[in-house]
C-alpha cells in the first residue's frame, strides 16, 4: 500500500467523521458508496472539497465523480494523474 493510499484513508476517516474506523479496515478496492463503506451524497461533496483542498484538483464535470469515487484505488489513481500539489 502506497503512502498516498494511507494518507487518503486517514483524510477520509477524519474528514467524514468515520469514528471507530481504522485505516486497515478500508480495503483499497472496496466500494466507497452503497454497500461498501456506506458513504452518502453529503460525503461525496466532502470528498470533492477534500480533492481541492489537499491536492489542488477541481472537479469540473460532476459525472466524473461516480468513477473517481468508486474506491480508494480509483481515487489514488485520479489524484496521481491530476494533482497540482
Amino acid at each position, binding site marked *: 500500500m502506497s503512502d498516498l493510499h494511507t494518507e487518503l484513508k486517514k483524510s477520509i476517516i477524519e474528514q467524514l467523521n468515520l469514528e471507530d474506523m481504522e485505516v486497515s479496515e478500508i480495503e483499497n478496492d472496496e466500494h466507497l458508496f452503497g454497500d461498501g463503506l456506506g458513504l452518502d451524497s453529503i460525503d461525496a461533496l466532502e470528498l470533492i472539497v477534500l480533492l*481541492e483542498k489537499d491536492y489542488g484538483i477541481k472537479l469540473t464535470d460532476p459525472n466524473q465523480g461516480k468513477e473517481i469515487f468508486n474506491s480508494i484505488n480509483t481515487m489514488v489513481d485520479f489524484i496521481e494523474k491530476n494533482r497540482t500539489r
Partner: protein
Amino acid sequence: MSQDLYITNSVLIRDSRVWKNEMLIFKNENEVTFSKFLKAIYRHQELKYPKFFKMDGLSKLGYLATEILTNGEIQNKSTALVFANSASSLETDEAYAQTIQDFPSPALFVYTLPNIMLGEISIRHQLKSENIFFVSREFDASLFIDYCRVTFQQKKAENMLCGWVDLHNNDYDVFLWQIARSGGTDFNEEELKKLYLSTHE
C-alpha cells in the same frame, strides 16, 4: 382538557449529567469537552448508529435524548414532534460561516437549520408525522401546553414527543418528554415547569 393529557416520561441532559424520569442515569466524573461528553453518553448507552458521528451538536443532543427517552424505539410512527430552543442552529451556523472563507463545508451546511434535528429523529425512527420547531427566548411551558392541546384537540396526533434542546457556545440544556392520553403526570404548566426545573438547586 389538561386532565386528558399526561406526561408519560422525561429526560434531562445538563451539567454533564443525564436524568431519566428524575433518576440520575449517567454522570461524567471528569471534566471533558462537550463533544466528548456526548460521545461518552453514546458509549454508555451502547448505541450503534454510525450516523451519530456525522451529526452536529444540536442533532446529537436530540438524538441521544430521544434514544434514552424511548429506549431506542418509538412504536407509534405517527408520534408528533414538538421542539423548541433559544439559539436555533446558531452554533453550527457560526461554524459553517467560518468555513466559507476557505472551503465551505457541505457537512456543516446541511445542519444550518434547527429542524434538521427533527429530520434526524424522524429518519432514525421512520416517523412520518407532524413536526414543528419553535424558537423562544427561554423554556416556555405555556407555548408547549397550548400547541400540544390544540394538536390533540384537532386529532392530528395521539402521541407527542416534545423537547427543549438548546445549544450555544457549548452550553447545552436538554429536556424531552412524551405526552399521551393516559398514564403518568398531568400535562399542565405547573407540572411541566417542575420537571424542567427538577435538577436546579
